[in-house]
């Protein structure tokens, strides 16, 4: 199924569906540092969308804007047809309250480079925390689902372990399960394998491939070109806060059009 949907964004033939993520002229600066300089892109539902580029190019910042961990300075950014961080009423924008921002984030899962598991909770408790606390799910049902999710990421026997007792790859898989427990419609991955030993990367990528095959919409900031080529439906190369090149991963990775893309790829491939 991942091949059939792949053309949707490139050609715009899938207009009927509301894009899962839509960015129009998104700018972001931190003080004097202008990080995003007008990003336009669309992520279709069920698409695996890869963002690559040198460090400092703004790809992580853009990812964090999608679930409002960073506030954009100008432009429009929407998730599933709803503006991120604002409500539009009679042509005016109203900032969302903390509670409303939190409510929007429930549908967006995020996986961090440094896992950010809660160290004072076991793997199982990490996964149960948000469903119980945010959705008000009963502990028994949350525990049951958490156990299933742990099994899905191949860690059924680690339920009682604290994060400090797990390897990096195991922690990251628990972190993915934790995000999935909220049953999100969109998953954001911020360099999920960059902090891992090379031999542990494969396990995490396998879980992500599995997720992609299930039709999850995923935005993935990554340096794993192999993953992008194999699983990605579209790929964007960013540099210095702008989208330099985009298209199908195979095309961009093998026949880059821009000099900047060529020189970047020649270093990482």
């Amino acid at each position, binding site marked *: 199924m991942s091949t059939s949907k792949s053309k949707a964004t490139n050609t715009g033939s899938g207009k009927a569906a509301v894009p899962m993520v839509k960015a129009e002229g998104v700018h972001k600066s931190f003080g004097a540092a202008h990080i995003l300089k007008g990003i336009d892109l669309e992520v279709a539902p069920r698409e695996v969308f890869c963002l690559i580029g040198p460090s400092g190019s703004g790809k992580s910042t853009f990812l964090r804007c999608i679930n409002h961990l960073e506030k954009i300075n100008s432009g429009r950014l929407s998730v599933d047809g709803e503006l991120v961080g604002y409500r539009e009423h009679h042509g005016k924008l109203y900032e969302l309250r903390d509670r409303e921002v939190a409510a929007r984030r429930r549908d967006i899962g995020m996986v961090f480079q440094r896992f950010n598991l809660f160290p004072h909770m076991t793997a199982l408790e990490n996964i149960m925390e*948000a469903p119980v606390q945010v959705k008000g799910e009963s502990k028994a049902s949350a525990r049951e689902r958490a156990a299933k999710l742990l099994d899905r990421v191949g860690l059924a026997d680690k339920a009682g372990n604290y994060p400090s007792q797990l390897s990096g790859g195991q922690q990251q898989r628990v972190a993915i399960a934790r995000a999935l427990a909220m049953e999100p419609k969109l998953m954001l991955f911020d360099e999920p394998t960059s902090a891992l030993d090379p031999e542990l990367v494969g396990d995490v990528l396998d879980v992500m491939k599995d997720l992609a095959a299930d039709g999850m919409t995923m935005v993935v900031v990554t340096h794993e070109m192999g993953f992008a080529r194999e699983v990605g439906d579209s790929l964007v190369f960013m540099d210095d806060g702008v989208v330099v090149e985009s298209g199908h991963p195979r095309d961009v990775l093998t026949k880059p059009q821009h000099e900047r893309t060529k020189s970047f790829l020649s270093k990482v491939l």
Partner: protein
Amino acid sequence: MSVDVDKPAEPPAAAPPAQPEPIKAIPVRHYGRWVAALVVIGLLVLLVRAFASGKVNWGAIPEYMFNADILKGLRNTLWITVLSMVIGIVLGVVLAVMRQSKNPVTKSVAWFYVWFFRGTPVYVQLFLWFNLGLVFQYIDIMPIYKDEWSDFMTPFLCALLGLGLNEAAYMAEICRAGLNAVDEGQTEAAHALGMSHGRTLRRIVVPQAMRVIVPPTGNEVINMLKTSSLVIAVQYYDLLQAAQNVGRDSGVVVEMLILAAAWYLIATTVLSIGQYYLERYYARGASRQLPPTPFQRLKAKLAGPNRAGGAA
């Protein structure tokens, strides 16, 4: 393991090569340590001799150990310690949150509070509370309460306010340090899961901050127990006051001071043990394996002295 005994190729003398011969060397002699030990022991002997020759009525100490007045003083000391710490912790948390807030007014008020109460000696603060009656005649909280100041401001209240408000300033700094010590990624992860600010603080940040907050707070409790002896300034009847009264009345002044010291030591020791277990509780998840408690170590030793260390 008698499986390969009948192996003909190996001569029996070379059978256990697993244990190589340990190195035999003459260890370094630490003459300095011997000298230092002798000097210290010599000084201790002098000290003991001095006290033995002094006219200390040692028998008076066990005799008055459970004297009613002494026990009343001890109770009051413990009571004022606990209550002052409660005020200190509650107010300290409030001040720490005020300090973190984005509201410039609450922020600067909290800063000013800490600046004032940390910058002046507790002894001076206690005297201030005690002598406020010289400038206020009545206490008048309009609709609720009105009374003569001297009736309202009892020694107990002076002691409580003096110690508690001072402690709050220190607790505020401890809490602030604890909250700041939690990695920002934790807050982000919680927010990304859709948790609100308050819930993130309660469920994620505070439990982790506790690991940083508990050890210094334990020290503060122990400190408070000792600092509470300053309430003599406001004529509150604490352990020290009781010991001095009894000592003066019975002519055993030094003995009662030693007795008070002994009670303080007992109380601080009990508190230290409690603190050990509390720290252990909040360290969960922070280290891979919690160290065994002294009890567990003792049990492991009794169970089998030959497998020491293999208990885990």
